C-alpha cells in the first residue's frame, strides 16, 4: 500500500466529526456525573455496618474493577434493555447510545467508589464526632461535613480521571456507536481515506487531552500521575 495522503475530504467531513465529538463529550459528562453519584452511593454502602449492603457493594466494585471496559459495554448492551423492560413492564426501545451511557457510568462508579471511600476515610474522625455532638444526624454529617471535604481532597484525581474517561469514550467503537473515533472511521471507510482520518483523530485527541492535562496541572499546582 502506498503512502499518499489526501486531506481534501476533511472539510466536508467536519460536521459529522463534530457530531461524533459531541457524543464523546456527552458520554464523558454522563459517565462522570453518573459515576460520581453512583460511586458516592457505593462508597457509603461499603462503609455501612450492614453486612449484606457492604458486601454487595464490595462485589460490585470487585467485579467492575476486574473486567475490561469493553466487556462492561457488551454486558450493558445486552442487559440494559432487558432490565428496563423488567422494571417498566413494557418494551422500551433503547438505542446502543443509552446502553453506553449506563455502561460507562456503572464502570466508572466502581473506580470513584474507591476514590471517594478513601476521601471519606481521610477526613479526620474528630469532624464526625464534633458534628454529632453539635446535634447533626449521621446523614447530615455526611452530606454537609464529610462529603464536601472528601470531594475537595479527591478533586485532582477526579479531574485527571476525567481525561482518561474522555479517551475511553473511543471504546464505544465496539458497539458501533458514532463517537468521534467512530465518526472518523465511518468517513475514512466511506471515502477510502482511513489513514488520514485516523491521523486526524489522533491529533485532535492529543491536542484536547494535552491541553486538559496542562489545565488540570495548573489548577492543582502539582503533577499527579494518572
Amino acid at each position, binding site marked *: *500500500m502506498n503512502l499518499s495522503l489526501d486531506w481534501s475530504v476533511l472539510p466536508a467531513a467536519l460536521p459529522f466529526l463534530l457530531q461524533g465529538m459531541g457524543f464523546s463529550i456527552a458520554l464523558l459528562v454522563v459517565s462522570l456525573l453518573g459515576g460520581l453519584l453512583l460511586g458516592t452511593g457505593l462508597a457509603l454502602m461499603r462503609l455501612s455496618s450492614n453486612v449484606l449492603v457492604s458486601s454487595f457493594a464490595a462485589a460490585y466494585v470487585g467485579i467492575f474493577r476486574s473486567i475490561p471496559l469493553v466487556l462492561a459495554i457488551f454486558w450493558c448492551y445486552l442487559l440494559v434493555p432487558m432490565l428496563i423492560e423488567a422494571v417498566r413492564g413494557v418494551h422500551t*426501545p433503547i438505542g446502543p447510545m443509552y446502553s453506553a451511557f449506563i455502561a460507562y457510568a456503572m464502570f466508572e462508579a466502581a473506580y470513584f467508589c474507591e476514590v471517594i471511600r478513601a476521601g471519606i476515610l481521610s477526613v479526620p474522625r474528630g469532624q464526625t464526632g464534633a458534628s454529632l455532638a453539635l446535634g447533626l444526624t449521621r446523614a447530615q454529617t455526611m452530606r454537609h461535613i464529610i462529603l464536601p471535604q472528601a470531594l475537595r481532597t479527591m478533586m485532582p484525581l477526579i479531574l485527571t480521571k476525567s481525561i482518561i474517561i474522555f479517551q475511553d469514550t473511543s471504546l464505544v467503537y465496539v458497539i458501533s456507536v458514532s463517537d468521534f473515533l467512530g465518526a472518523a472511521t465511518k468517513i475514512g471507510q466511506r471515502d477510502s481515506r482511513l489513514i488520514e482520518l485516523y491521523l486526524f483523530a489522533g491529533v485532535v485527541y492529543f491536542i484536547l487531552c494535552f491541553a486538559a492535562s496542562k489545565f488540570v496541572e495548573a489548577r492543582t499546582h502539582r503533577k499527579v500521575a494518572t
Partner: protein
Amino acid sequence: MSRSGVRLALIGALIPVIAMAAPRFGSANPDDGAGRRTTLEKIRRTGVITLGHRENSIPFSYFDDRQRVVGYAHDISVAVAREVERELGMSSLTLKLVPVTSQTRIPLLINNTIDLECGTTTNNRIRGRQVGFSTNYFISGTRFLTRKGSGIHDLDDLRGRNVVVSAGTTSEIVLRRVNAQRKLGIRIIAARDHGDAFVALEFGKAIAFMSDAAILYGEISKAKRPDDWHVIGTPMTEEVYACAMRKGDVEFKAVVDRAIQRMMRDGDMRKLYARWFQAPIPPREVNLQVPLDPGLSALFAYPNDLPLE
C-alpha cells in the same frame, strides 16, 4: 482485597445472581405465560416501530453520504412499516431507525430494542431457533472478493492464505467449518462488520474477503477504484435473506409477509431490485450491474420463507 473481603464480595455477588435466576413474581401483562406480548400490540401502544438497519451493507441497508439510511432491504422494511400502519389503522406511525451489526442484530431483537431487522441476515435453521424470519427477499451465494491479478480463483487457491470475514455471519461459520474439516490452513480474520472487513482487504491484511456475493458487489461500489476488484469462486453456499423478527410472533409475521408478498406479486420487488442492483446508487452513483439470478426470479414468483440449510 483481604481473604474475608473476598468472601464477603462473593456473598455479595450472589445477590444479583439469585435475583436473575428467580422467576419473575407476577407480571405487568396478563398475557404473559401462554402467549407473548406481541410486537403489534407494542407498536400500537407506543406508536413507534423500531427498525434495525445496517450502516455499511451496500446495496441492502446503509448510510448514504448524507447519513440517511437507504437500500433495497431498507425499502422493504419501510414498506413493511407502512403495512403495519395500515393493519393497525394508525394515521401515522413513527419509524425509529437503530443501526446494528451482524453481531448485535439478534441480541437487539431478543432484548426488544428493535422490532424488525431487514438487512443481510441469512434465514437458516440455526438462527430460526432464536428469531423468526419473514418471506425471503433475496438469494445469494457466498463467494470471494479479491484484487484482480491476485492469483486467487477459488477456495483451493486460499490454502495457507489470510481470508477476512464479518464476525458473526454465516460466512464465518461456513469458512471455519470447511477450513477445519478440509484442513486448508486458511488464516481467518473476523472483522467487526463488512466495512472493517473491506478495510482489512484493502490494506492487504487479507488476500480475500468471503461473504455473500451481493455484499461483495456493494463493497466494490465503495472502493477507491472499483475496477481493481472482482468477485470470484464457486458459491460455497446458497443463502436466502429475510427480515428477522422475534420468534413466535405470529400476527406480526403475517403482516410482514403480507407486505413483502404483495410487493412480489405486483412487480414492485422486481423494480426495487433494478433500482438497487442495476442502476446508479448512492453514495458514488456506481452501477453494480448484477444480473437477476434465476433463483431470485423464482423466489419472486413463488414466495416462501424457508431456510436453505
